[in-house]
């Protein structure tokens, strides 16, 4: 078992974000003729963007992992549950009111995500949170409602901000600079550590609330801490990069398949793996279109949505 653990850790760090970033950098190096221009491009445009992508991917896939564990539902994910949508409403209101990105918009996004979280839990906990269908259905409805509100807000806007907002909504990483990436890192990293700290209680929670409690887990405290930390992470990413969907579905499932269900391994793996995945998706989004680029959210949804359907089909057997 110990050997297995060591092998896992080795395996993760070899396929990690670090080497992912290195690859990306090397690709950039080879594809363009090296010049002093390149230095600027890499340091002012590419690197912040890659960092941003890695952070967003890490936060979202960790968010998915936490929700899947807490709700004991393999299909849970911030985007599917509508929590991303809720924080997007908050963020749009913030943008329209002309707040700055960091405290203003993020704070409203956080409020939005907590509000949706409470709404979903309230709607589905009447019977039992564990019921897959109830949870997913309420998520779909919350999402539809959020989308309507977002469209309403967007159609009320007439000016030049419109294009920006729509692009941002679809999950756009192009706005980032080093400063943004720094702030995002500062907000997300403590959350990563916190979630990792709680990874063993998460394992125990998977065995059922009763068993977890009689093994000495303070269920209420752990659950609330995790939910709030996750909503915080999600809203932070949403306020910077808009709606990037399904990342929290793809990575946790893939990693669980390879590494098993132990969260003490999965949490760091999700941070690294999610980051890598997002960096790749963003790379595709940049490279695929002949002119300009498309939002990374398009790519993640194109990969994630079919996977979701596959998982739904498999889990309903």
């Amino acid at each position, binding site marked *: *078992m*110990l050997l297995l653990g060591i092998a896992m850790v080795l395996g993760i760090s070899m396929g990690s974000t670090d080497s992912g970033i290195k690859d990306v950098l090397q690709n950039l190096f080879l594809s363009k003729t090296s010049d002093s221009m390149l230095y600027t491009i890499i340091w002012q445009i590419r690197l912040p963007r890659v960092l941003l992508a890695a952070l967003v991917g890490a936060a979202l896939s960790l968010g998915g992992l936490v929700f899947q*564990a807490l709700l*004991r539902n*393999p299909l849970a994910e911030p985007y599917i549950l509508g929590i991303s949508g809720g924080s997007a409403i908050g963020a749009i209101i913030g943008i329209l009111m002309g707040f700055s990105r960091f405290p203003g918009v993020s704070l409203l996004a956080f409020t939005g995500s907590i509000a949706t979280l409470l709404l979903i839990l309230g709607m589905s906990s009447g019977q039992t949170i*564990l019921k897959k269908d109830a949870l997913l259905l309420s998520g779909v409805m919350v999402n539809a409602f959020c989308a309507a509100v977002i469209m309403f807000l967007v159609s009320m806007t007439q000016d030049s901000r419109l294009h920006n907002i729509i692009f941002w909504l679809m999950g756009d990483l192009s706005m980032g600079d080093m400063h943004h990436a720094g702030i995002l890192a500062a907000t997300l990293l403590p959350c990563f550590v916190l979630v*990792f*700290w*709680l*990874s*063993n*209680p998460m*394992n*125990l929670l*998977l*065995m*059922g609330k*009763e*068993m977890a*409690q*009689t*093994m*000495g*887990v*303070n269920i209420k405290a752990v659950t609330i801490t995790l939910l709030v930390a996750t909503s915080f992470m999600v809203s932070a990413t949403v306020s910077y990069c808009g709606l990037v969907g399904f990342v929290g579905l793809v990575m946790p499932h893939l990693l*669980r398949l390879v590494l*098993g*269900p*132990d969260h*003490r391994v999965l949490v760091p793996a999700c941070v690294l793996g999610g980051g890598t995945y997002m960096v790749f998706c963003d790379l595709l989004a940049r490279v695929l279109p002949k002119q300009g680029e498309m939002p990374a959210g398009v790519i993640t949804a194109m990969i994630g949505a079919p996977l979701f359907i596959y998982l739904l089909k498999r889990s309903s057997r």
Partner: protein
Amino acid sequence: MNTAITAENLSHSFGEDLVLRNVSFSIPKKDFFIIIGPNGSGKTTLMKVMSGILKPKNGQVKILNRPIDQYHRKALARTIAFVPQKAPTDFPFSVAEVVLMGRSPYLGMLGLEEENDLKIAKEAIAFTAMENLAHRKLDQLSGGEQQRTFIARAICQEPDIILLDEPTASLDLAYQAKIMDLMEKLKNEKGITVVMVSHDVNLAAMYADHLLLLHKGQVLCQGLPDEVLTYKTLEAAYGCTLLVDESPLGRSPRVTLVPQKYMNIDRQIE
């Protein structure tokens, strides 16, 4: 004082429903104690109150003569282990991983196990004869094997008391005997107090040192099996006609359900 668990005037209600009414009893150390009673008599609620999952509205539970709410979470988990009736198995942990989870009340936040913990887990797996299945995933096991895994996990917790909520429900005959023998061995070899909720009156009669018969949230009767399992008490609790005689194995009462079509014969016997 050699008591493992003392219940003093426990009352509990869900909304308007009184589920437990002034329940008092005490369980000696190293006892095999089985709680029986009809559906909805409050057995599971009582179990949850004893394990500290539920806080009773009134009264208190003492574990090893100390009120349960004076225990720290982890200290309580080192004293009492609980095996629920059904546990989710949809995340594919292996048997060994589940058993090792039983060590977490002894470990720090991350639950990183040491040599000694691995050894204890190994022993628990051996005790429940699960060696061959140790690396199988939980969702590939039969109901009885899953149940044994959860029992091994509870043993790995090294508690003084193990509580089990209907561990034999939905198991076939061979497995019922296996689980009950295992609990008896646990009591005899490790000196653990075993407290169990059971549906099966006959199984309870054969294994229990003491029985508690619960009816509508109240203690109807408690004591030795042949004191509790009488025609009178059982009929009062279950409201159906039963025949009580001695088991062919001797020394324990045997309860036979009397179907409607035998009713007339039954009267003749009386």
